């Protein structure tokens, strides 16, 4: 079986986790794609850590308001009922446990629920931005990542080697191969994304993976048809 990296599958699967009314923070990059696949009958309240609730889609070209951006400084819109606030309130919402889900990208994630994404010593030091507060404060932390690094190494580790952003905070990891739950210092494969099989995934993953009896296959062609997207 040939592996083809697929970020859209990750975004599509995560988008189906939420229910109407959930307060969700989507990180910059891959997690932002999740917003494109939320089902029409589900209304989320998106939180943006630079100071808003009710984050809406990008504006039409020519209608950008440069006082209204997301945490990646791209122009956005605000949905009816949304509001703005300062950074202390924003992180009060985050740290105070008022965000249901945070979705963020990773460099490494391990079976203890540790996550690294802010620093590669000696190489690249982007900084943690809001990620440490988001992982410490959100009810459910979802790591969204391609399963493999460009080198082919699995990003799901037994133990992270990079400086940690979050210690034992990750609940779910969604890759382009499957959905994993962190429990008891191991990854439980809850869903595998066809055509990959649990055995194929386990063989190529550095971390310890448990395949429970109720682990189920998911086909994005069948379960998430293209219509309505």
């Amino acid at each position, binding site marked *: 079986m040939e592996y083809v990296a697929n970020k859209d599958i990750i975004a599509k699967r995560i988008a189906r986790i939420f229910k109407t009314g959930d307060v969700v923070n989507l990180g910059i990059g891959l997690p932002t794609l999740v917003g494109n696949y939320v089902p029409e009958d589900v209304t989320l309240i998106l939180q943006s850590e*630079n100071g808003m609730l009710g984050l809406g889609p990008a504006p039409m070209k020519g209608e950008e308001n*440069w*006082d209204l*951006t997301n945490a990646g*400084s791209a122009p956005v819109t605000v949905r009816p009922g949304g509001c703005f606030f300062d950074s202390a309130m924003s992180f009060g919402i985050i*740290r105070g446990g008022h965000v249901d889900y945070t979705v963020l990208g990773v460099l490494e994630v391990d079976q203890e629920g540790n996550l690294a994404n802010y620093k590669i010593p000696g190489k690249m030091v982007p900084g*943690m*931005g809001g990620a440490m507060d988001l992982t410490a404060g959100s009810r459910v932390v979802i790591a969204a990542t391609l399963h493999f690094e460009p080198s082919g190494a699995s990003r799901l580790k037994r133990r992270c080697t990079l400086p940690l*952003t979050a210690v034992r905070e990750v609940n779910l990891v969604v890759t382009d191969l499957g959905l994993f739950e962190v429990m008891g210092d191991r990854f439980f494969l809850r869903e595998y994304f066809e055509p990959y099989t649990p055995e194929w995934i386990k063989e190529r993953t550095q971390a310890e993976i448990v395949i429970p009896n109720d682990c189920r296959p998911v086909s994005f062609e069948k379960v998430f048809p293209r219509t309505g997207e």
Partner: protein
Amino acid sequence: MVKKPVISAAEAAAKVREGDSLMVGGFLACGSPHTVIQALMGAGTSGLTLICNDSGSHDFKSGKITGVGHMVAKKQFKKMICSHIGLNQETQRQMNAGETTVDLVPQGTLAERVRAGGVGLGGILTPTGLGTEVEQGKQVITVGDRLFLLELPLKADVAIIKAKKADRAGNLVYAATARNFNPLMAMAASLVIAEVEEIVEVGDIDPNEVHTPSIFVDVLVKAERLEW
């Protein structure tokens, strides 16, 4: 109400002295005081300590620089206290070359440290950063059955902030997500310079709509540059 002086950006920049600590409002240049940043760049004041959410952006490939990144490019900071420097390659270069030091602070912690500096708190207790490099050298305090890091207040000699509108008394109203760190920094510096797009008479802003009370603001500068 006492009216606040409205001064030029150059006059504002001249109030910042070599070696000062400088808070700069904005989030990746959204809500940053671009007019005063440009004047400070012109003044060339150096040896400054920057306290800002990020260090703006600077892309070596395209040469594009935004926000406080213009002052980074002129090497005006000996130290930067930020939550994110990922979009500024020049900050990373200066840090790796030992030309400046960078203290990375989690964004929510940075916001609360600035707020603590402004509102008379001796520090804050936060779970953010426990077990990470952020914990190093800090006191861990147990409250009940939970652990917290003691994070200390931040103050500055000068804060340069940006608002949408001010009245002559210095009451401020911010726009959308351009609010971010601005109201917090307004409370935490000895001298607060507010750059604003519109200045109205005292009484022309509904007291219900004031975001930053006038007493925090020392001088006003009319914004001439809204994006940079």
